[in-house]
């Protein structure tokens, strides 16, 4: 009875903007395809079956697999320790486990580079000359520290959601502790590993900052180099291969996930498990947690501050100010526009769950999952066709909007779930037309969600690197581009102030995300 509205036709003022957004996302990607097939047939064979493609594929795959493995090794014990044991300070360690999300990959890479090498912190403080970290191992460490919190939060919430009765019945049937983990807990965590794995995988595919600073060639990095050259057809093909790889990731996850949807039978809230005392293992557990927090949160912060002190900050103030304004001028309109479009999309999805609305929401997620370098290239190709648009700020704003639209939909949708459709029906029965009823009865309840959406997109755009590097007008200064630009030239001191401001915005973003998560869970509870 709840979705009765669904059988009615959605009004044009919702459908039209939603379709417009869908088209805006798909059109550049479609044009990428057109561009790719403009090559001569003979050249095509030569482009697609290049040995270099295989080399890039192996590199990308090795990095993704490595990051997943390291992330899993860090996140699983962290999640278990903070949910299932009698350890003290679990809340603080949980927070510390999420905090690395506030450090963008390229800042993490900056940290590693600024730490090691002949003039790095370790060298100047301890006289220890570490070789400069780079290549596979540098990229692996930076990306693992940056992405393991995604796995951690997934595993953690899954562990908290498990029904204690299942484990207790296994124990009552004669299973030992490790057997319970092996046969009851781990199987139930499988969907979580897949989902978290997908997020991490897509991050590795899409990452540009880390691999470019570490000079490790993956598809994204190679694609970037190719866009700077004249062989744009090969660039289009690299982008297609990158998209294909992302598609394979998503498909694999969906395939693995099928049939693993686990539901609790029985009624009543699940009971909490009894916590396990660690005994002699308590010491090692604390050391593990401490080292992890130190390496992933404290070291980056200290490194940035160290380089800050090395340089006279005031001399850079003018440039910093300009870059900050540049970031804000591009991010603000993107945040506002994507929130505007998020409302009809979320509303259609929640109130008119039809085939079309489901497709449109998926399309918004395609924009999000598309590796940003590929998206940027699609935009470059597309805007070259429209006179007067190429290399303007609008292109950058537009790209931000479409890429982060999915982030804006989330909070609006949670807010909509909290506003029952009955409210609008009540307003209609009291003499309000449908649109007016929405404005009077539902819109006031969305304010919090709309603010969150705008803020999330704003902060995401502030720290976004590849789209900014590839699409901003010539000479346009932003924070992210400056961090990256100075770091590629090993000018760590010059990059430091920009990195610090980025860190600040990222911390804000994370705080907001955490609050939003809590609201979302309450909405669904």
């Amino acid at each position, binding site marked *: *009875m709840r979705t*009765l*509205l669904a*059988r*009615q036709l959605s009004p044009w003022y919702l459908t039209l903007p939603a379709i417009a957004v869908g088209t805006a996302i798909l059109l550049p990607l479609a044009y990428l395809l057109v561009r790719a097939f403009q090559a001569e047939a003979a050249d095509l064979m030569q482009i697609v079956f290049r040995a270099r493609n295989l080399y890039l594929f192996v590199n990308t795959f090795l990095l993704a697999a490595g990051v997943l493995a390291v992330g899993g090794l860090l996140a699983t014990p962290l999640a278990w320790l903070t949910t299932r044991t009698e350890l003290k300070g679990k809340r603080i360690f949980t927070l510390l486990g999420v905090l690395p999300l506030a450090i963008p990959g390229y800042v993490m890479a900056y940290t590693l580079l600024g730490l090691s090498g002949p003039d790095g912190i370790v060298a100047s403080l301890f006289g220890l000359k570490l070789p400069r970290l780079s290549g596979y191992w540098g990229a692996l460490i930076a990306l693992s520290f940056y992405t393991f919190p995604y796995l951690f939060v997934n595993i953690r919430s899954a562990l908290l959601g498990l029904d204690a009765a299942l484990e207790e019945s296994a124990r009552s049937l004669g299973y030992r502790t490790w057997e319970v983990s092996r046969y009851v807990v781990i199987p139930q965590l499988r969907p979580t590993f897949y989902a978290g794995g997908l997020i991490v995988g897509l991050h590795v595919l899409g990452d540009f900052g880390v691999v470019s600073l570490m000079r490790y060639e993956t598809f994204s990095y190679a694609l970037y180099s190719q866009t700077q050259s004249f062989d744009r057809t090969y660039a289009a093909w690299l982008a297609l291969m990158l998209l294909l790889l992302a598609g394979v990731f998503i498909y694999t996850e969906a395939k693995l996930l099928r049939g693993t949807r686990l539901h609790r039978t029985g009624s009543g809230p699940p009971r909490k498990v009894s916590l396990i005392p660690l005994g002699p293992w308590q010491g090692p557990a604390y050391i593990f947690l401490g080292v992890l927090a130190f390496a992933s949160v404290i070291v980056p912060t200290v490194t940035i501050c160290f380089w800050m002190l090395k340089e006279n900050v005031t001399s850079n103030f003018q440039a910093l100010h300009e870059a900050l304004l540049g970031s804000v001028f591009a991010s603000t309109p993107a945040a506002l526009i994507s929130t505007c479009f998020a409302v009809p999309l979320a509303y259609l999805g929640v109130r008119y769950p039809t085939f079309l609305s489901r497709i449109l929401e998926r399309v918004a997620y395609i924009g999000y999952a598309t590796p940003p370098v590929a998206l940027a290239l699609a935009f470059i190709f597309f805007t070259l066709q429209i006179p007067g648009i190429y290399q303007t700020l609008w292109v950058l704003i537009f790209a931000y909007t479409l890429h982060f639209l999915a982030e804006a939909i989330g909070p609006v949708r949670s807010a909509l779930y909290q506003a*029952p459709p*009955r*409210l609008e*029906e*009540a*307003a*209609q*029965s*009291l*003499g*309000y*037309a*449908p649109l007016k*009823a929405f404005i*009077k*009865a539902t819109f*006031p*309840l969305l304010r919090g969600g709309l603010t969150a959406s705008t803020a999330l997109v704003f902060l995401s755009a502030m720290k976004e690197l590849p789209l900014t590097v590839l699409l901003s007008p010539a000479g346009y200064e932003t924070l992210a581009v400056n961090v990256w630009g100075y770091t590629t030239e090993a000018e760590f001191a010059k990059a430091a102030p920009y990195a610090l401001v980025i860190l600040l915005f990222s911390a804000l973003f994370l705080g907001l995300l955490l609050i939003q998560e809590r609201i979302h869970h309450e909405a669904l509870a």
Partner: protein
Amino acid sequence: MKPLLSVRNLTKQLAPHLGPVVVRVSFDVYPSEIFALLGPSGCGKTTTLRMIAGFERPDAGEIYLEDRLLDSPEVHLSPKKRGIGFVFQDYALFPHLNVMDNVGFGLRKLPAKSLRQRSLEVMELVNLISIKDRKPHELSGGEQQRVALARSIAAGPKLILLDEPFSNLDAELRHTTREEVRGLLKKTGMSAVLVTHDQEEALCLANRIAVMQNGQIEQVGTPESIYHRPQTPFVAEFLGKTNLIAGEAKGDCADTPLGILPLDCNVVGKVLLSIRPEHLAIEHSNKVHLNGFRGKIVMREFKGHDLTYRVQIGEHSYFVQTDHRCPFKVDDQVQLRAVETAVVIRGSDESGTLKSPPSMHSQDTSAAKSF
């Protein structure tokens, strides 16, 4: 008297692969009448109500309010133009507005002063003045319900629709609220259509009841006629326990496994009869009684102020309700006697013909004229 609301042949299918949820439903609601749509969940009663409100569009049929056509295959008046109030099961109070603003929500066309005055009037009526500045989440279930009702009443509709209005209240509150709502509707002289699955609620609140099953109306009538003269086996069983008995009618009585039973009408041929457990009496089988067949008690349920027995006679068993003095035990040899006439269920006499149709076979509107 002219009906206020007329529903004619209303039909609705929610999804193409599912069957229709409402099938050719017709009924009238008269001014000042409380009309209940009663049925099990999924019988189409809420969909019917939502179509009257205009939230759903019927596939076929018409809805009239007074002489105005609200719905037909060609016409669909939007909910805002209908002037029909709707009280939702979960009340749907606007969480961002206080009680006063919720009540005044439908009065936006009035100037501020009269808006305030009218809101106060209605709040006075439903006894909300003392909590007029509170937000919905600060109210108890009963208060929320009164606000929801006041919000609908304030807009001055001719008809109010109530969707399971008492289902969110606990049992104790339900009784008192039911009284209040009934009193309020009578005081304002407003007509109401009420949807419920609770037969007791329908019986004690409504002037007339339509019993629905599988999207169709099985019977319309006053609570008394519905209860005492059910026309279909479903109605007989849905409104309290009953015994359904097959028999051979011969005028004003019928041959049944229970012996000869007196009937409420004249009919000939095979019939299905309904007789309520409290309309049967148990007697010791050693008393000679021509009219009864011998049986045995197979179950005894003591419920305080009364008792329910199940009596096995031949291959059938029957429920009998007696007062606490009835002294039988399980396995006692007994016979049954009807103390009231048995009710002939309509449509059961396939081969038989009705000699004189009982009065309830036509739509029972006699009660509607005497509010």
